[in-house]
């Protein structure tokens, strides 16, 4: 039951983009077309799930037993950066079609604050292993949902008559605000 609650709340209620404001750069940058938004979402979900596993192992097997809590920031960022590189090489070797789909988006993920935020939030909340993995996977899905909706709206926006100074990021942010408003309707789904 606890796990279901974490899953739903990470997708709908505490959505990474619309509630925690994490991953705004790709959310605004790669949301012009639905296809690329979908690939980006997939890549982020993939990396987030792996990051959740690896950061939990590092935190609970290395940092906490040796009382190295203050090294959390340095070790997490280094591990995430090398992890993304590793995943990229691995996918290129194992599945070229998947690499074609995710390829150019993977390196961008290193600087995506959503990944680092996920590792930090999971550590902050003291989640167990299963909870961390579910949290990572669901947060990725939540990101994917938000970026696909955004891309859908922006494809329509191209046809709309937007005032000159609002074009580009300004109108995208206002749309994101309205989306965040809509997502607030899910608060209260979970007690």
């Amino acid at each position, binding site marked *: 039951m606890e796990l279901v609650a974490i899953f739903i709340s990470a997708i709908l209620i505490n959505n990474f983009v619309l509630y925690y404001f994490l991953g705004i750069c790709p959310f605004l940058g790669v949301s012009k077309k639905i296809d690329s938004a979908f690939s980006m979402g997939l890549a982020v979900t993939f990396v987030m799930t792996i990051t959740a596993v690896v950061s939990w192992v590092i935190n609970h097997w290395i940092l906490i037993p040796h009382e190295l809590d203050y090294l959390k920031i340095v070790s997490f960022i280094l591990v995430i*950066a090398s992890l993304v590189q590793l995943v990229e090489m691995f996918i290129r070797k194992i599945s070229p079609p998947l690499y074609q789909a995710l390829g150019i988006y993977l390196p961008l993920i290193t600087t995506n604050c959503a990944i680092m935020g996920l590792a930090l939030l999971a550590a902050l909340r003291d989640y167990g292993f299963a909870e961390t993995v579910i949290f990572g996977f669901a947060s990725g899905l939540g990101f994917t949902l938000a970026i696909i909706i955004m891309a859908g709206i922006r494809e329509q926006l191209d046809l709309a008559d937007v005032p000159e100074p609002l074009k580009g990021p300004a109108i995208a942010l206002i749309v994101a605000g309205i989306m965040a408003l809509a997502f607030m309707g899910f608060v209260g789904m979970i007690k």
Partner: protein
Amino acid sequence: MSTKTAGQEFIKGLWDENPVFRQLLGLCPTLAVTGAVINGLAMGLATAFVLIFSSLVVSSIKKLIPSQVRIASYIVIIATFVTVADRFLAAFFPPISKSLGPYIPLIVVNCIILGRQEAYSSKNKVGRSLMDALGMSAGFVLALLILSAIREILGAGTFFGYQVMGAWFEPWIIMILPPGAFITLGILLALALQIERRTKSRK
């Protein structure tokens, strides 16, 4: 490298190359912590501290860093100063540290800082890099202050925790919630663009 005077290096961060309004960098913390002015200010100063000291270190040891591993080296340098800022806030200002939560450690992935190292400090002398970092920090703090002042005054009727609006004022709760952050920043960006267009067309 650059023909600007030291003063111009500083000034450009305030408007022409303002990290938030002109370059759209560092939007995550900008949106996340600006519900109250005190949080915005703390975030701005912490980021400024990290940016200034990282720029100092990077520009003084730039000859020692092999270019293949420069990004990783910058990240380690930045992460070190972020840890210092994080521990400092946790030790001396526990309430602020608590309300900023994971966003202080997240300064490490703030693209403003890495961007300045890559674009500026790694190519320029220490003094210039310092001026550049000071200017960018001032621009970032300014952006955070504007956004958090609007949101706190309209959303809670207070400024720095002091009541500024009369009893007649009904707070717009939405402004301190996430949607308010997106919409306010969107409007501010449009305003900045409009001002820029006006000044350009006058020239």
